[in-house]
């Protein structure tokens, strides 16, 4: 038995260069533009998406060497079954046991269409976004220099990088990030039942309740969750109150401040305090819990939050988005979006049509190892 294992390992080592051709020759990757989607923001000229680049990016995505002490890989907090979020976690532990980040893991889908990345828009280009999770102490806590050194020791990576970037010694930070970007760029979720419905394709059938939900959604939610990405990509204060257990959270204020050393107190005065990106609602059923800190577990509670008659209530900071404030005839204000319980049932039914099982089960995006 031992002998067989040894032979197997030996074979594995010897054929490692060859692995790629053997395993992945069964598909060709190219970026596919869904007809109902907007123009991509992805820079195809700078970083063209190739099958080899996608395969390399996927290998990196699922490689623990991107983290300190090779502890975790990207899929730790980005599981395909949950549209690449952290299967039900509100916040996520990084490489250090008991040390958590401060934001809910966001889905990795339709990145090629986004203007900004992360909850506060810390990045405006996809290619260098992974700098954040790789280096943040509460996430993978590794240096790019170390990751590059680890990969350079691996002859399979040497070969893969050379194939993708067409030069010797191609392993460097920029190329590593570009490969990840190619992988993420292809991760497009555009085949939900909703998509088939709007494109008039087979399987695109809505029940009456779902049709009603869509109409209500367009009327009550689509100002912010607009278009086929289901986000207007704005940063807004949506009335979510401060999380007292995360006192350093300032939302987008930290990013838009010109002072890198600004204190929380200083950032509280910013108009961007506690503003977060309007998230896409694609695959929303699978991406629970909700809000930037994952404080709402049920989608129905999210609707209860926006319908301010019901607990949890909205918090009115000075910069609460004006679209969430209605002034009544008697001069009083109503916060949020009024919805009846029946309307919520219909909207929830509609939101479930945004689940894209083809995306969630697409083997091309799964861990190849």
């Amino acid at each position, binding site marked *: 038995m031992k002998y067989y294992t040894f032979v197997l390992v030996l*074979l594995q080592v*010897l*054929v*490692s*260069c*060859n692995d790629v051709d053997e395993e992945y020759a069964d598909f060709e990757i190219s970026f596919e533009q869904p007809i109902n989607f907007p123009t991509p923001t992805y820079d195809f000229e*700078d*970083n063209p998406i190739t099958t080899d680049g996608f395969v390399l990016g996927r290998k990196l995505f699922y490689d623990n060497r991107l983290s300190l002490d090779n502890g975790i890989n990207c899929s730790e907090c980005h599981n395909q079954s949950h549209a690449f979020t952290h299967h039900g976690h509100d916040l996520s532990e990084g490489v250090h046991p008991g040390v958590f980040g401060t934001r809910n893991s966001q889905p990795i889908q339709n990145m090629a269409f986004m203007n900004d990345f*992360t909850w506060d*828009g*810390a*990045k*405006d*280009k996809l*290619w*260098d976004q992974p*700098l*954040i999770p790789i*280096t*943040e102490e509460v996430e993978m806590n590794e*240096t*790019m*220099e170390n990751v590059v050194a680890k990969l350079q020791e691996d*002859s399979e990576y*040497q*070969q893969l990088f*050379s194939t993708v970037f067409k030069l*010797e010694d191609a392993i*460097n*930070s*920029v*190329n590593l*990030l*570009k490969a990840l970007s190619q992988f993420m760029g292809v991760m497009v979720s555009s085949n939900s039942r909703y998509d088939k419905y709007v494109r008039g394709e087979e399987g695109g059938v809505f029940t009456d309740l779902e049709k009603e939900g869509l109409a209500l959604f367009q009327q009550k939610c689509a100002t912010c969750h607009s278009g086929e990405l289901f986000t207007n990509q704005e940063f807004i204060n949506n009335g979510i109150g401060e999380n007292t257990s995360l006192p350093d959270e300032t939302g987008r204020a*930290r*990013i*838009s*401040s*010109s*002072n*890198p*050393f*600004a204190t929380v107190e*200083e950032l509280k005065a910013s108009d961007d305090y506690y503003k977060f990106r309007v998230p896409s609602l694609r695959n929303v059923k699978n991406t629970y819990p909700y809000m930037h800190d994952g404080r709402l577990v049920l989608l129905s509670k999210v609707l209860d939050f926006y319908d301010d008659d019901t607990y949890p209530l909205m918090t009115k900071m000075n910069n609460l988005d004006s679209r969430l404030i209605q002034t009544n005839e008697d001069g009083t204000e109503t916060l949020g979006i009024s919805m009846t319980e029946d309307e919520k049932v219909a909207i929830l039914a509609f939101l479930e049509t945004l689940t894209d099982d083809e995306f969630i089960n697409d083997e091309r995006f799964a861990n190849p190892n």
Partner: protein
Amino acid sequence: MKTLKSYIMVAFAAALLIACDDNNESIESEGTHVSAVLKLQHSLGLGDEFVLTDSNDEDKTLELSKFKYIVSDIVITNTDDEAIALDNNDAAQLIDLENADATNQVFAYLTGIPEGSYKSISFGIGVSQEVADGSTEDQIKLMELAESDMQWTWNPNSYIFSKIEASDINSVETVSNNLQIHVGNKGDFDGYRTVNLTFPETLTLSSSVSPSVHFTVAIEELFNPEAPGISVAYDAIGAHGDSSDISVNFADNYANIFEIHHIHPTEEAINLEDVEEENHSDDDSSEHSH
């Protein structure tokens, strides 16, 4: 059948591995000629004490603990007014007083400049938004330089352009009022600035020489510049709350702290590989001496 397939795979893998080995041989052994050496002599070294004025108009004695900046987009102009832009993947530099010699000099070696007669040079302090938003391939070296603690990973423009830090040595008696200013492109403030300088005499570049250009870098003038620069209290920005006018004045001053003192037009030709090796052995010896 399975065994046969394994044998074939082993043979194929072995062939591939040998093929991989081949690639490493073809590098030329001649070395890379250094076209010119920039010798940046700073007015202060790490650990030096200097006096600056704070926002209460009081003089404070500070001890310099960090001074580093990224140099990018070097352009050298010849006597026919042709501007030669040097590739950031070769020419971009991280100048760090940590690596200075005993006279506070840091050397930067430029390669690949066409032979000819040159009259002026310009370079950026930091990384322009155009470069940061531009080709990723053109940022390979810049990203590596930034990994030496010059990166805001969580900022749209991840490059930190410059850092200056110093401690208030009298802080035992008073509330400490340290200096800490990091410049980048953050929020609505872009601290990228371009330095333009004329050589005091024509700089002739050829394969037979590696001339050096001797710069002085007056660090204190970031705060007390010559006119028309505007003075900046050292504690008015950064950790102590930001005001964009002051930040703009401070960044502007970066463009004026550099001067070309003289050039050595006929210094002996050197190769980049040799100086890099020498620098590494210097590192080793300094480590031993500690």
